[in-house]
């Protein structure tokens, strides 16, 4: 849509439309028709993405979630100074943010790879 509300003119070429329609694409049809094979494919993707998310969540739970316990179990950790700053301040106030961004970055990378694998599986079935 252009800024003035008129749709942009698009050229329709019959060859392109024909090329876009993939003939006898089994996996694609399996997905569309909800056959048991299609269901299994989607379940595989969901499981892969969920286990990735859960594994990274576990990294955060052990990395950050264990800190309050650590401070209770070993109160001396709180008094340790690094660069003149008490360790808990440094861990929570500064380092936790790049840690979270790093985990997020890894997730985006791996989640996209899972999706690429899924697309490859659908596009090129039975090798």
């Amino acid at each position, binding site marked *: *849509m252009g*800024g003035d*509300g008129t749709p942009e003119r698009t050229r329709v070429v019959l060859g392109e439309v024909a090329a876009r329609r993939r003939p006898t694409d089994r996996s*694609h049809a399996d*997905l*569309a028709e*909800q056959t048991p094979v*299609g*269901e299994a494919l*989607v*379940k595989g*993707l*969901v499981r892969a*993405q*969920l286990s990735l*998310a859960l594994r*990274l*969540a576990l990294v*955060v739970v052990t990395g*950050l*979630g264990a800190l*309050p*316990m650590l*401070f*209770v179990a070993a*109160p001396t950790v*709180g*008094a340790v100074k690094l660069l003149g700053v*008490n360790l*808990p*301040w440094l861990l*929570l*106030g*500064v380092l*936790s*943010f*790049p840690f*979270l*961004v790093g*985990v*997020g*970055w890894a*997730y*985006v990378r791996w*989640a*996209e790879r899972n*999706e690429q694998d*899924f*697309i490859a599986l*659908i596009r090129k079935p039975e090798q």
Partner: protein
Amino acid sequence: MNPYLVPGLILVVVVTVGIGAYGLRFARTTSDFLVASRAVSPAWNAAAISGEYLSAASFLGVAGLILRYGVDVLWYPVGFAAGYLALLLFVAAPLRRSGAFTLPDFCQVRLSSTALRRLASVFVVFIGCLYLVPQLQGAGLTFTTVTGGSYVWGALLVGVVVTANVALGGMRAITFVQAFQYWLKLTALAVPVIFLVLQWQSDGRPSVAPPAGAVFPAATSVVVEQDATVDGVEVHKGEELYYDEGDRVPQVSTVDAHFGPEWLLPGGERTLFATYSLILATFLGTMGLPHVLVRFYTNPDGASARRTTLVVLALVGLFYLLPTLYGVLGRVYTPQLLMTGHTDAVVLTLPEAALGGGHLGRLLGALVTAGALAAFLSTSSGLLTSVAGVVFTDVLRAGRGGSVRDFRMATLLAAVVPVTLSVYVSNMDVSRVVGLAFAVAASSFCPLLVLGIWWRGLTDLGAAAGILIGGGAAMVAVLITVLGPPLDGWAAQLIGQPAAWTVPLAFLVMVIGSLLTSRRVPHDVGATMLRLHAPESLRI
């Protein structure tokens, strides 16, 4: 009064309304108003989401809490940022692919239940109000602190500006407004902090937690606002107390604050329950905040929703490095706030207190106040848009084909209650109420979204039971905390920080309820799962 203040504040309001009006030129249909026709680039979108998210609680409240309680409350900024990681891991891409614009929409898409949709609408409006009232209150309090004017006018002023802006510009406009306000808020904290740290260096790096307790950096007078005991000596309302440079800051009986090692070191077992409750509420609550989810619809597809969320996480994390410094330096330069209890004002008062009343101090003081105004404006705009969106589609029943005039009507309806409440309820604790809004969101919408996206077995009855029991329990706890009498001991912990028990309760009820009613699993759940998780390029 600071001479730079009024021009600075007027500039923020004029630019906000100006960008809103500029956006209006592009907004022609209702769809433009609601979702900006999805023509927003990820960088703009991420800045807008961050701008919308960083509220008064982040801009003023976090620094105030750190000044008061020290290391234990660093979990607030960490949790506010980590909430976006949970959103990224479990919700972002599938939610975008579901095509849901609001949480009630998601109920419809996933479970095709109108009753559940209504229940979700009730919670969206409750959470929206719970979050909106303290924003307006914060505006009123800032107005009083900075200008000495009346609280009601400050709250009303921000309420009217926000309502007009949302009603006239809609979402397209506020995308740009919010993005502008993120950068304004970051600048407003980052620039003064450079001067503050340099000043602290040139003062010979005074200790932020001296062993003998905090001391006054200059001669200070404090006016007593209510009867209390100061270091065991009774004082009465109206008296004025004088302190010399280097005097120790006394403890006031009516102000809860931590001193010495209690401030510097983690609290240990005493605060363990509250800490974990806070972690649960903030980590899982962000995904359930109504104004956060609406934004995901403006991404073109699931993959870009994921990337946008990652950028948001980075932007929000960058911002949260700053309030800590204000809280810590406030310990050195504005310890009188620990006596008055107005710790939320530390960000506003610190530049002038540390750098003196010269031009630099006043200019930076005006800058942080402008940033605070941006914080109220942007978060309240986002909240109001999302609450208005729910009122528009679910109360007025306009649907996507409704007119722009209906949306303006919905905005007015959505604004009336919180603005009125904020005028009459001025004694609620701002940052605590915001934390409670997170607890309600984490106990109602978080289980709905996570189970709805990842578990085929979820049923409409199970979801409704989970929201009613888990979210309802959190809601009741919030109402008791805000309106009820003060509590002691374990009851105070369980009611004051409910997330640690209401979130697991909501998940448990939702799972058991769904298993018991497994015949009600939607027959098209396979197709829905395909739609939520398959990349768009495979759309059939």
